[in-house]
């Protein structure tokens, strides 16, 4: 526990703690500079230090400056001060967990009764009761079966055992407190308290602070599986679309000097006796690419690729023409399907059942895909077309045929490859992304940010990636 030790080292005081806190924020990717630190120091001079909410408010207003930062800030704040408090308690050798309700009286809690009690407490009790409920649940759970040792797993296991869900469960008997469903914010609060309680117990058992765990990129990852809410996805898309729109404005502003439209200028000059008083300039229209998307829908990448396709289709307005293909072993066009259907789940189902990609093996065959794509589309490819491939470039031992891919890339103006795998795994095993990377721009694309970067690159006119390389 080296960090906890430096936090509480004599002489470091409050400034030291604030510094350590800011450093943790930076480590998680929040851009908190010196100016922010100074503001934070000034701000906390105006609030009550004993009031946790006020401290949180003052620090978040000065250190976190976007919704994304806010989220990270909350997590880091929680972690930092939880650890600081626990660390201090450990140093003083105090008993951390207060008396556990499970230890008194009955040596075995009636689980059915407990379920009802907790559900009722969550639905009707005051907010403060949630914490007691969490303690009760943890104590009961610890008795009936040992924990898995992983806090996150235990939290979910407890919730499942108690049968707590946010949606109504009509099959439960009348009078069951769970039948109407638990309000989801309450449920989240409950989970948080359970997590904290479990962590506290673990600290008490081991008498040390666990190493401070980074928040992990997974928490910021793209919404993948079809189980996830479409609304989430549309939020990401709406943001991207507005970004594209404002970017267009930006480009317009930068291009004030343009080529002169001679024909128009001369015609206008007739009004002023042949003197070209008013110069007319040729409008430079933003480039709206024609896009061909090739999407791997084999099992290894399905969720991310379909998500990606739906994003592209939502951005349809920004592109002149767009055609989408999905492939596993063979290739099949799904443009119409996406035009008709908005629902993410329905689309993925339709693709899985009747898009004509139901293959024998279910393993990607890139060589064959390039060949078929060339046969179908070659005549339509031209220098203003953009080809986007989404796939993990794992050939399953089949020939990669990068020569065919090179042909495609040569015909099209720009070629992008999006790989939903983290860069770490590229070129390991049967991944041949390097071979294809020769002919196109490769993008790592598994978080919303990376997707945003890619869409911006896509909408940026002019620059030809192949020549830039």
């Amino acid at each position, binding site marked *: 526990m080296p960090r906890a030790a430096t936090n509480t080292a004599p002489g470091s005081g409050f400034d030291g703690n604030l510094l350590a806190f800011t450093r943790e924020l930076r480590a998680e990717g929040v851009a908190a*500079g010196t100016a922010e630190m100074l*503001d934070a120091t000034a701000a906390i001079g*105006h609030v009550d230090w004993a009031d946790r909410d006020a401290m949180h*408010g003052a620090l978040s*207003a000065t250190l976190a400056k*976007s*919704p994304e930062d*806010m989220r990270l800030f909350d997590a880091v704040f929680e972690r930092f001060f939880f650890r600081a408090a626990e660390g201090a308690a450990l140093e003083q050798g105090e008993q951390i967990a207060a008396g556990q309700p499970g230890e008194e009286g009955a040596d075995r809690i009636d689980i059915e009764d407990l379920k009802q009690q907790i559900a009722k407490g969550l639905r009707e009790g005051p907010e403060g009761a949630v914490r007691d409920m969490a303690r009760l649940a943890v104590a009961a759970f610890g008795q009936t079966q040992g924990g898995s040792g992983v806090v996150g797993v235990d939290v979910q296991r407890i919730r499942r055992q108690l049968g707590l869900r946010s949606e109504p469960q009509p099959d439960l008997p009348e009078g069951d407190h769970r039948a109407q469903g638990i309000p989801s914010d309450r449920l989240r609060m409950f989970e948080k308290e359970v997590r904290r309680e479990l962590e506290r117990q673990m600290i008490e058992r081991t008498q040390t602070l666990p190493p401070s765990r980074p928040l992990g990129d997974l928490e910021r990852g793209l919404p993948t599986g079809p189980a996830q809410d479409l*609304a989430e996805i549309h939020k990401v898309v709406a943001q991207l679309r507005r970004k594209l729109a*404002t970017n267009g404005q930006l480009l317009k502003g930068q291009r004030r000097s343009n080529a002169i439209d001679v024909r128009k200028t001369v015609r206008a000059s007739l009004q002023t006796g042949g003197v070209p008083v008013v110069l007319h300039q040729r409008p430079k229209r933003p480039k709206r690419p024609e896009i061909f998307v090739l999407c791997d829908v084999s099992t290894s990448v399905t969720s991310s690729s379909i998500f990606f396709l739906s994003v592209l289709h939502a951005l349809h307005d920004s592109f002149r023409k767009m055609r989408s293909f999905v492939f596993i072993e063979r290739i099949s066009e799904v443009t119409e399907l996406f035009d008709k259907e908005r629902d993410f789940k329905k689309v993925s189902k339709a693709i899985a059942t009747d898009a004509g990609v139901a293959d024998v093996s279910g393993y990607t065959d890139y060589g064959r895909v390039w060949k078929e794509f060339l046969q179908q589309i070659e005549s339509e490819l031209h220098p203003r077309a953009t080809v986007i491939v989404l796939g993990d470039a794992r050939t399953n031992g089949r020939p990669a045929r990068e020569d065919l891919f090179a042909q495609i890339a040569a015909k099209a103006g720009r070629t992008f490859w999006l790989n939903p795998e983290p860069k770490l795994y590229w070129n390991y095993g049967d991944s041949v992304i390097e071979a294809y990377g020769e002919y196109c721009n490769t993008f790592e694309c598994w978080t919303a940010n990376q997707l945003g970067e890619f869409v911006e690159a896509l909408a940026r006119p002019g620059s030809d990636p192949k020549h830039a390389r």
Partner: protein
Amino acid sequence: MATAPSNASELADGLVADGYLADTQTALVAWLALELGKPVLVEGPAGVGKTELAKALSRVLGRNLIRLQCYEGLDEAKALYEWNYRKQLLRIQAESDDTAWTDVHDDIFGEEFLLERPLLEAITTEEPVVLLIDEIDKTDQEFEAMLLEILSDFQVSVPELGTLTAKSMPIVLLTSNNSRELTEALKRRCLYLWIDYPEASHELEIIRLKTPGLPETVAQKLIELVGEIRDLDLKKPPSIAESIDWARALLLLGANDIDAKVFRETMSVIVKHRSDLDTVAERIGVKLADANAASSD
């Protein structure tokens, strides 16, 4: 000027008395802005009361509100200052022929010929004001850069005149719908406040405050429904402004309960897209009818 609040909760009380129910974070940040003299960048979905906050603040603090509505293509001449060209022209013409050119030249670039636009006005008035720069994300980045000087040092440089410094410290609120990333430089100079859709209990209080005549049961059901609608995948989810409108509509109609019929009739107050209407009617309207049948059994 009204007495200045001495802490955040006093400010919050003042805002409530004025009809603006601020949560603790909002009140805290507003108060910090007052104390630290820093501008506040307020972000959040449309219709959660970002603009309203500035108006309420100006009333509570007894200051004038100066509002600059941003839009694409807003430039210095409209936001900061402009030379009064006509007046300058008149001044030159009124001059007799023998006056030296340099005299006139110095003369016509005086403060007398300066047309103050909102930003300049905000810092040159004697009485401190609340300056609201609304929807900053609608402007382009050049405009943002121009704001930096005024936001950090509260001064404006006019090339012909020199630097005009603030006579009073305005409270500056910038609002944004987060439609584009603002520059780091701007963010660094501001405190940040994110206003989201409020929690159910908080929204209920707002409804009570705004439409006191509405029966309690209706208000509760309304909040519940709005919450459910927000969870749907809509193009434009209903905001607080829309909840209040709906509450007012229900009050006008004298509704005692929100059943399927009332819901269908008044739905257009909160849902404002054709496709959204269908979704909501399908998902929520049906549920309401069911609930009714069940209760009448």
